[in-house]
């Protein structure tokens, strides 16, 4: 449904062009949830902006973005409006910045229905209350009369989800939708988004810095570094057998709620953006424990490996290394396993508590 092919994006910053995406290729099938995970500057939010043609002025874009085979870059104004209004729905981190504070929640929800769908006022009101109930908001009759400032951030994010569902999009672009929320509220909002999306067969591109969260709710997860994808595979496989050194490092960096480790696997240095990465060679080389002199030359391609795609020229060597070792290279054998080698989730104590 959504297809990004060899996408390069550069932004104009202070008169200079700075590359933020570099050879990004990604697809989202109808009804599929794909997670896009990365640290600051990895380009994950710029990917969403590129998909919706909301990049800052003066941005240079090459490569192709297709939605249902249509070239997004070639859309004229009416086609672009239809695409943004009806095909894709967007949920952002801060709903307060994206919902007009002078509109009542009911008007905010009915506006899109009436303008874009031609629904009559009474029917729109009824649909708005139904949608609020669907996203788990109690007493929707009262809520539609309230203003955004009168409700909490978690509730407003649910209003945002309701407004996106109202447009009946084929694809939801969710950019850190729960990052600003408390953890219990995040769990609720994610559960609602997940359920409604599945029930309606809506695809989703879920942008987050939280690899655990992406693994928990997405079908496939793509890990971004310096403006391109370094690894993509099914959430289940990525959790158990990540192949790219950066993915392995990320999995080991995050402390686990299940056990303390003596030392977290800290990746040395800091994450870089595409424009900071060396023009030649693998962008992760200077932070990678497995880098060889050859890694400094020629950009590795994103190639199939173990049912996924990996951008690392040493991936086959490293997989052999990992197999010959009983434990993760990150964790000495005596201590609790680092996350990348955590036992199948069914055995973890967390699982029991999480079942509704």
């Amino acid at each position, binding site marked *: 449904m959504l297809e990004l092919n060899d996408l390069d994006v550069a932004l104009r910053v202070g008169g200079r062009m700075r590359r933020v995406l570099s050879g990004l290729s990604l697809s989202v099938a109808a009804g599929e949830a794909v997670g896009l995970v990365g640290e600051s500057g990895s380009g994950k939010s710029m990917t969403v902006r590129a998909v919706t043609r909301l990049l800052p002025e003066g941005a240079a874009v090459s490569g192709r973005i297709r939605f249902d085979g249509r070239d997004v870059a070639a859309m004229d104004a009416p086609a672009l409006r239809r695409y943004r209004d009806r095909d894709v729905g967007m949920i952002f981190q801060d709903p307060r910045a994206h919902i007009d504070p002078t509109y009542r929640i009911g008007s905010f929800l009915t506006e899109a229905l009436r303008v874009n769908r031609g629904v009559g006022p009474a029917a729109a009101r009824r649909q708005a209350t139904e949608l609020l109930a669907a996203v788990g908001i109690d007493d929707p009759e009262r809520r539609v009369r309230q203003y955004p400032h009168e409700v909490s951030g978690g509730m407003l994010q649910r209003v945002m989800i309701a407004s996106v569902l109202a447009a009946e999009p084929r694809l939801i672009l969710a950019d850190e939708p729960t990052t600003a929320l408390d953890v219990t509220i995040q*769990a*609720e909002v994610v559960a609602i988004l997940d359920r409604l999306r599945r029930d309606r067969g809506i695809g989703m591109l879920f942008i987050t810095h939280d690899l*655990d969260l992406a*693994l*928990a709710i997405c079908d496939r997860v793509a890990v971004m570094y310096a403006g391109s994808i370094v690894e993509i595979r099914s959430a289940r496989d990525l959790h158990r057998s990540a192949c790219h050194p950066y993915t392995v490092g990320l999995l080991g960096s995050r402390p*686990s709620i299940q056990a303390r480790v003596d030392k977290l696997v*800290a990746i040395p240095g*800091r994450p870089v953006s595409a424009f900071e990465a060396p023009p030649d060679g693998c962008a992760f080389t200077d932070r990678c424990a497995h880098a060889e002199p050859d890694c400094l030359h020629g950009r590795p391609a994103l190639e199939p490996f173990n049912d996924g795609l990996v951008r690392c020229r040493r991936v086959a060597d490293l997989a052999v290394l990992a197999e010959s070792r009983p434990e993760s290279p990150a964790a000495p054998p005596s201590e609790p396993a680092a996350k990348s080698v955590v036992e199948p989730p069914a055995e973890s104590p*967390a699982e029991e508590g999480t079942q509704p």
Partner: protein
Amino acid sequence: MSAEALSVRALTKVFRVADAKGRRAEFTAVNDVSFALEPAGSLGIVGESGSGKTTVARMLVGLEPATSGTMTVLGQDRSQPARKAADRRERARQMQVVFQDPYTSLDPSQTIGSAVEEVLRAHSALTGPARTARLTDLMDQVGLDTRQTAARPRELSGGQRQRAAIARALAADPKVLILDEAVSALDVSIQAQVLNLLSDIRAATGIAYVLISHDLAVVRQLCDTVLVMRKGEIVERGDCANVLDHPEQEYTRVLRASVPVAGWKPLTSARQAEPS
């Protein structure tokens, strides 16, 4: 002198607020909170928005006077604000704080080295080469090189700034370090570096930590004991691993179950899990 690094008894904070009709009302942000921290101990205070954890931190470091209750640091009472500059300096030497955003707690026009040295000048008897040597030690300890020591905050990344803030806090040679969401804003790979750094520093110096955080995994990694707060009150406390593995209170269970892990099925409603 008490054996405890930090002791808090019946700490309460009531804010005067205006209700919906503009009438005077009271809001109890922290209610009857007591805890103690051993020297070299590490206590996590976890909670969500409105739990009162930040207000506790602000009272601990003297940014907010307590309405009632007592606080002692190394056996000395500090329930009331310090009146004299010498008292304030003494208190600062005992307890330091690292905030979430080091960018707002470092002077943008001052180099990192100068910011740390300023604290050494105020709190230690070291002079000349001895002070310079101590500065170098501190920067080594937090992993900043000479170029970064000479840099101003905006020239550093978020992780490096947070290291600088930690070095500055350690320069006073405190016995207690308050970490108020100190790793929350960092990228995952940087957060791991800073968490490892904090563990190493505690092992090396015997400093005690109070970590205020919403992140249960970070608390488990860094803390021995934990307090779970909700709506201004402590709902559960104890050994960190024990509380997280075998929570006794329903709220702790919900909090624990809300953390995504592989194979996680989000609760459809956290409210359903509350006792009826």
